[in-house]
């Protein structure tokens, strides 16, 4: 019964989400990542019940159908913060562009030099942007959405655990600069940490997160051509 399997996989995923979210809200530790924890619960259950990945796909399609509209909704906070956007335009534009470029170039070069397979390189390029962008950027350029999401979470975890310390150590004290670095370098997870530092850092991080997604998506075609030409 395919309908039953779809219902089961959706219920399983919702349950995994609620469970990992409850755990995160209880302990609030950056290593307790909702995405990885939730996916691990789902994968472990599928493996234990001997359900192949192919049977998860119809449910996955239904669940991710709202991801696109939700992502478009990111324009709403961007619009609400338009006065901040105008006020700090030079720092935002320069910081986000440089950061996005550095992220892709360095990750891509290391991946290339290390001899990673061709479909892995485009998946690692969008590692600093939030998952809905990263998944699409990877897919357009021949990468894997699943791998891209794992690299995004790894980056976000790293950035949210050590990012603040790194910035302080480097003498970056300006709250606007700190927020921009956290949002550009570690997307939503960095934004959550920035909000713990303060309102200003958090708002800047949120702006940087969306803008870094747009910037990375726009530079990625050039970067792929540069790194993966025949």
């Amino acid at each position, binding site marked *: 019964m395919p309908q039953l399997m779809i219902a089961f996989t959706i219920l399983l995923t919702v349950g995994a989400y609620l469970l990992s979210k409850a755990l995160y*809200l209880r302990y609030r530790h950056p290593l307790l990542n909702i995405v990885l924890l939730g996916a691990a619960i789902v994968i472990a259950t599928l493996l234990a019940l001997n359900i192949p990945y192919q049977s998860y796909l119809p449910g996955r399609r239904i669940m991710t159908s709202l991801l696109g509209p939700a992502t*478009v909704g990111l324009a*709403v906070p961007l619009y609400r913060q338009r006065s901040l956007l105008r006020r700090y335009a030079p720092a935002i534009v*320069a910081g986000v562009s440089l950061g996005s470029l550095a992220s892709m170039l360095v990750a891509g070069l290391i991946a290339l030099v290390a001899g990673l397979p061709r479909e892995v390189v485009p998946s690692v390029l969008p590692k*600093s942007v*939030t998952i809905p*962008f990263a998944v699409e950027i990877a897919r357009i350029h021949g990468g894997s959405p699943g791998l891209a999401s*794992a690299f995004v979470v790894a980056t976000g975890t790293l950035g949210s655990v050590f990012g603040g310390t790194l910035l302080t150590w480097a003498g970056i004290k300006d709250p606007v600069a700190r927020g921009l670095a956290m949002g550009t370098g570690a997307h939503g997870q960095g934004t959550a940490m920035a*909000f713990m530092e303060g309102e*200003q850092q958090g708002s800047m991080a949120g702006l940087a997160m969306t803008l870094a997604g747009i910037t990375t998506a726009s530079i990625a075609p050039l970067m792929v051509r540069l790194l993966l030409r025949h």
Partner: protein
Amino acid sequence: MGRRNPACEDVWRGWGLPSQSRFTLERVAAPPEAFVKKKLRFLGQVALLAGIYLLGNKIAAFVHLPVPGNVVGIILLYALLNLGVVPLEYVQDAADFLLRHLVFFFIPVAVDLMNWGGVFYRYGLALALAILVSTILTFLGTGYIAQWLQKDEKPCPN
């Protein structure tokens, strides 16, 4: 923490720290027709967001842009909001709700990882290095240039 800006706090929180959805007394005690109307309005907002998303996809495909349709959709909605074609009230309830639960949609995507165990096993070290070095350089690059451009700016009171 200084002064709070309620308009941004609630929304930004959604990306990393999903707050529990709040059931207020008014929401439970509202008359049924108002409840249905509210739900319908919410669905209409979701439909509008979905329409803009699909339009973004169509535009990207039509112009052969190598940019994802959701990126085109965001720019489109931002432009429509700024031009006043779409008032904020037409989309904000649905957008806030979906963004609060954005993390949920990432889980089914990450389940794809069950096919990729071998890559981590074989290339784990190189991947870790690529992610570590590029993340450090991104933080420093963005932080330094933004701080340098901010140095003439008077610090914000809050």
